């Protein structure tokens, strides 16, 4: 026969049965707990697992049956494709020359493609707007930088559909501060909070190309897959298409991570009214998964400034623009000193004449 020992949730000492009060009592800290509560507490305490869901492998649609030219970048190794009427000369990612290569595999036909909604002019305007009101931008950035040809490219993405179940136990507190006589009293009420729920995720994208950094591709999200259509070679006219070099199996961990974080955030949002909330343990399961292959429209802009390449990307569907601009060390120092002088003077005047 197994005898279960109960530990005090407050101090961890052994609990004993208080026959007078008909309750479990901690002889160390004096807290009392009902047996039902302790059973639930112990049960919730022991649950913890986050499993990496094993998605079914993606079944390819085969290569595109059309006149497609395949190019390889000698610098970054990127493989891009274009229709026979679109000539590619430079790599859209690193701006190095590309060469035709008939040895590389053809373009994999996607399950869906989202056609471009934003044009090149939109991308140029977005870059101008992005550079506005940036006080730390070096003075010569606009005049000295060399904006290469802006390129529209279909970037390969893996789309993950799934359901996610989550159960999370939190330790939460409510703090009440009062004054009693000559004492400041702080009372902290401790709670066990449990949330369990499920959500359906559709078309979670994971970048299928290593050529463009994942953070750029995630930053231009979201893509609205409702605009997705069946692939036709005509959509490639005037644009380039990147070939995937991350297969669906390699993209799965990132999908699992984002879905797990997603259900965790959804459950956390329902815990309200506490001073502090700490996740104690969690169980998250992904199920009913499906993988699709898609091509998403992205405008890629790269510019050189003082020998360094700065990349920008714009979502060709929504116009969301992201990138990285250089920071002028001189301006950073000037702002730091100027602000310190201004705030320090105001603070000194207050310190000397008002306080």
């Amino acid at each position: 026969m197994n005898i279960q020992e109960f530990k005090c949730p407050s101090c961890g000492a052994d609990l004993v049965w208080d026959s007078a009060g008909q309750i479990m009592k901690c002889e160390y800290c004096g807290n009392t707990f009902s047996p039902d509560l302790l059973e639930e507490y112990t049960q919730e305490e022991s649950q913890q697992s986050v499993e990496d869901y094993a998605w079914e492998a993606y079944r390819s649609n085969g290569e595109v049956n059309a006149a497609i030219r395949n190019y390889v970048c000698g610098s970054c190794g990127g493989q891009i494709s274009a229709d026979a009427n679109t000539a590619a000369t430079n790599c859209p990612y690193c701006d190095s020359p590309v060469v035709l290569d008939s040895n590389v595999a053809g373009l994999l036909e996607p399950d869906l493609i989202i056609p471009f909604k934003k044009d090149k002019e939109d991308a140029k305007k977005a870059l101008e707007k992005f550079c506005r009101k940036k006080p730390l931008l070096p003075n010569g950035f606009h005049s000295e930088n060399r904006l290469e040809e802006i390129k529209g490219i279909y970037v390969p993405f893996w789309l993950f559909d799934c359901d996610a179940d989550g159960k999370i136990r939190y330790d939460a507190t409510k703090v009440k501060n009062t004054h009693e006589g000559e004492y400041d009293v702080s009372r902290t009420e401790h709670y066990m909070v449990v949330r369990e729920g499920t959500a359906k995720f559709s078309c979670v994208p994971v970048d299928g190309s290593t050529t463009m950094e994942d953070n750029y591709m995630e930053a231009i999200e979201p893509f609205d897959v409702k605009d997705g259509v069946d692939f036709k070679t005509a959509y490639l006219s005037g644009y380039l298409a990147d070939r995937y070099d991350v297969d669906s199996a390699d993209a799965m961990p990132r999908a699992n991570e984002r879905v797990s974080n997603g259900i965790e955030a959804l459950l956390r949002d329902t815990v309200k009214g506490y001073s502090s909330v700490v996740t104690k343990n969690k169980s998250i399961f992904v199920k009913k998964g499906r993988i699709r292959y898609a091509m998403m429209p992205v405008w890629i802009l790269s510019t050189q400034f003082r020998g360094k390449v700065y990349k920008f990307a714009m979502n060709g569907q929504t116009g969301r623009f992201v990138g990285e601009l250089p920071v002028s060390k001189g301006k950073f120092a000037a702002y730091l000193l100027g602000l310190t002088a201004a705030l320090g003077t105001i603070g000194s005047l207050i310190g000397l004449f008002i306080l």
Partner: protein
Amino acid sequence: MKKIISVAAALLACTTISLCACAEASVKVVDNANIFSEKDESKLTKKLEDFSEDYGVDAVVYTTSDLGEKSIGEFAGEKTVEVSLGKGSSNDGIMLVVCSKGDGDICIAVNGGAYNSINSYGQNRIKELVSEDFKANEYLDGCNQWLKLSGKFIKRGESGKPYNEENKYLTLKDKVGRIGYSFAGAFVISLIICLIMSGMMKTANPKHTANDYVDKKSFKLSKERDVYLYTTETRTKRETKNKE
């Protein structure tokens, strides 16, 4: 007999009036503890006389090596009467009592209208600033410093804005400290602002969750439990200001 009594009464009245008119203590330094050399005592006496003339406030230094059973405050109170501390119609006077025994404890007594300028805040503040000299047995320096600070407090009091808890007296060290703290705080705030501005130059940041792709109304809570466990309590005694 009645005549004798009335003459005696008249004489007493005349003595009282003359005493009031010349209430200023004639002795400026009473060095019972023998902490001053003759040269230092004469220097100090001269300074006290000059102070008295400049500010219209009587100033006396009284030293002792034995307070008896009294506190230094009670001792000082007795000595202000004994030396007839005070000058002018409002009997203005300040006295510094120094006990050479132990740590060189001191007490500042203030008489008459001088209290408007050197109130209880002023007495504590001046004591705080000169105590170090007396603890180090630098008695003459301590007395000079006491006179200098008393002069500043009286001058400020005459301008109608005496130093008090709301209008504190700041030394050069205090001022430099406040300016230093202001600039250190300003530097930290400025650095945070500049780092935020610098962070705005890079917007290509990864997404943490996939919540842009949750189907509408698909999120359902199947369990929602908030269970109270226990309460902990901390008590901190509030700091109270010492009332002297």
